């Protein structure tokens, strides 16, 4: 059908595009503000109110220099990449296996197992029991304390379960008639069919692990060289928080760390840029992946 450019259609398009562009602008604006602040003159930034659309004063990379010259940042990047890759790859395989199992109708333990998994979504032991589990398994102050507890996520297992349940049993039957074993059926027949859900789970896992700092702060008290990027970033942010003056209140020379104010913005850019750049590549799978698990035959 050929659409005619009637006045109402033109008006609709203008409003529609205008609204979308405006909305997109609003989404981008906070990031732009942070980016511009990160290259602004720190003294002018201190006295500025409102949005910063262009660098204040002469643009400076002083903040980035301070952040990137910090060896902890590079250590953090390396560790974060290790944790992200390990949990995304191994965790997704584990999730797929668990999701496949609890979605099988001819498997008697499927329901109890699914309930068991769901139970952990609702009730958790709390931080100290979890810490004691990690400690007693000998994982404290090792990379395993970050990787292993992150491998399974009950919510993702349920997502995978729903995705598998949507696939017609005929596919599995046909594969079995052709002589395929369960693992072949899973990896060669069914998984390609739930690829959007897999990608969503991978992306969620990556984002969650990228932003994670709490586990490391608890499980790696003596191993600073194993800390992820976000924990170092958090330290930098706290270090440059003006409220720290309170903690050093007994010191007469209470300074206002203006460069620190700049560093906060630089750290935000350095910490979020990689994940922001990766996000659009997985975008196309998102809507499909999240919604496909919710439709039943």
């Amino acid at each position, binding site marked *: 059908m050929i659409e005619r450019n009637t006045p109402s259609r033109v008006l609709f398009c203008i409003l529609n595009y205008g609204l979308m562009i405006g909305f997109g602008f609003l989404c981008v604006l906070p990031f732009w503000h942070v980016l511009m602040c990160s290259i602004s003159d720190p003294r002018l930034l201190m006295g500025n*109110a409102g949005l910063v659309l262009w660098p204040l004063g002469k643009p400076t990379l002083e903040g980035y220099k301070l952040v990137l010259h910090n060896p902890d940042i590079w250590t953090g990047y390396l560790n974060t990449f290790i944790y992200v890759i390990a949990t995304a790859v191994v965790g997704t395989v584990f999730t797929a296996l668990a999701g496949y199992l609890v979605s099988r109708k001819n498997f008697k333990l499927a329901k109890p197992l699914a309930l068991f998994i769901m139970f952990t979504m609702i009730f958790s032991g709390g931080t100290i029991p979890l810490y004691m589990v990690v400690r007693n*398994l000998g994982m404290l102050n090792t990379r395993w304390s970050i990787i292993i507890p992150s491998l399974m996520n009950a919510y993702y297992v349920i997502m995978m379960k729903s995705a598998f349940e949507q696939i017609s049993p005929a596919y599995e039957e046909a594969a079995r008639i052709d002589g395929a074993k*369960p693992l072949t059926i899973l990896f060669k027949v069914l998984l390609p069919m739930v690829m959007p859900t897999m990608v969503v789970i991978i992306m969620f896992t990556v984002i969650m692990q990228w932003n994670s700092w709490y586990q490391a702060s608890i499980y790696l008290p003596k191993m*600073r060289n194993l800390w992820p990027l976000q924990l170092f970033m958090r330290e930098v942010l*706290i270090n440059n928080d003006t409220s720290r003056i309170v903690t050093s209140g*007994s010191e*007469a*020379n*209470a300074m*206002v760390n203006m460069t620190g104010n700049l560093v906060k913005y630089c750290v935000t850019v350095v910490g979020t840029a990689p994940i922001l750049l990766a996000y659009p590549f997985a975008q196309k799978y998102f809507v499909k992946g999240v919604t496909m698990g919710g439709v039943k035959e």
Partner: protein
Amino acid sequence: MKKRIIALLLCLVLMASFLAGCGGDNSEGGTPTNNSSSTQNTPAGNGGEENKTPENNGDTPAVDTSEPITVSIFQQADDVTMDEVENNPVTLYWEKMFNIDIQWQFPPQGSEQEQLTMMLGTGDYTEVMNLSFSQENLPSLYQDGVIWELSPYLEQYAPNYYAYLNDPANADVRSILYDDDGHIYNMATVQEHPMAWGGFVYRRDILDTMTGGNIAFPSGNSEPTTIEDMDYMLGLMKQYFDNAGMAVSAPLIIPSVGYVSTGEFLNGFGIGALEYLDNGTVKFGLCEDKFYNYLVKMKEWFDKGYLYADFASRTQDMFFLPNTELTYGGAAGCWYGLTANLGGAMSIPDYGLFMDVQPMAAPADTANGVDTPLGILLDSGRTQANSGFAFSKACSEEKLIRLLSAFDWFFTEEGAITRTMGLSAEQGAADYKLYSEQGMTDGARKNGTREWTDFVQHEYTDDNVPNVDRMPGISIQMPPRDTQLVDGVSYEEIGDEVWTKYGNANTYPLTITLSPEDNTRATTLQTQITDYANSMIVKFIMGREELTPESFKAYQDQIHALGVDEYIALKQAAYDAFITR
């Protein structure tokens, strides 16, 4: 079949991980309980008969340091890198001197309390713990068997610390560190002379501009000292900002609650904010009759446009760093500022902004008969109840004695200077990486003195010279370095002199601690009182509630109904116990 095997394996893994938390060595998970009973047998425990208190023969026994020991220390993270901590020349020098190897455990900044809770919850203590950041009650930790009580050991194994605490000149420190039972639980960090780091400041340059340099305060003084002076000053500032056509400006910024909760500025009206002292009697400023005078003046200034119109909405601002857009943007005249604001430090010559910020003492409300403000200031005290290091029961008695003896060095004159200012050339400064990297091969200070080396005095530009400020010991008053001067002037000293002009005799010591039960009750009362008072104060100042003697009386009655008398009684009892220690 494979599905079942996989399912079985998954179940086993889940079960194993659940059970893992149930086991464990008794010496780890059960430590607090076990230690609780062992506490009774310790020299400081209640079982005094089994006391192993070293004999007090008046001599200081030599502590054998020939065997090296390793000690784990939980230390609050500082604003220094790990490299600076592990290679800190003073620490390394001290470790070598006492044959001690420290294994630091630095929690991530901002996670100190969580890590501490985890240690206390699981019994995984380090041998030494810096608890200065926490609100933990040391007597309770001792009763739970977590830490040692030190009084039986100090005289013999930490004689310098002991002598310092028993010096009448340090009675304030003693009152803070000892509890009502005469117990002490930590080797503290003590400030020799804590300097005021903040107080009210005003833009002198505005007054100069508006009067052509002929500032004529009604009091006849050269700086504002009375409320009438403030009237004069704020009027000039208002004119200045109006003439400049600034969209938003503020001759005076006050905190969002309408007053400075530490009591500064209010002391000019003859009262404090919350609890304060009047000849040893605790009073509550927000319900005193003189508070009415304060409210009347603030309302008057608000109506005249002298007060920052949006002050009540700035709930996120810290009182010592109010709306930086206004203060640093050159649109504020008077506010609670910091040492770092003083002089021309806030000017931006490249953009034509010149600011001369000067400290001011509390202005006296002479019109209402207050000739001299009360002695109230933000005084954190020379030490805090939790400052320095406490020693956990993971530390053996033998090791405790070694450590007390070693930390005691920081209470000697030489040790105190070293911990605060760093090493001298004679102490081998050149051997340490952090000094040699920064060109301090002659050390940070001249040997045996409180003087910086020429290099540090004139050329060293970093904010801090590597020292061990978080260690126990005396933090001495350091001479200012060139980089700490503004136009050759030490505003740190000038600010301290002005802001402490009226002393602190009326300040209720922040370091007074109440028993856990009393503290809970007092906190509850204070919350409900201040919740009501703060909302009413803002309404009175902004004119949303009529301010008359009758409405103020109703306000006072309500505060009494909310339990201010009980609150004052709790604070009075705590103060009385404090001064008798």
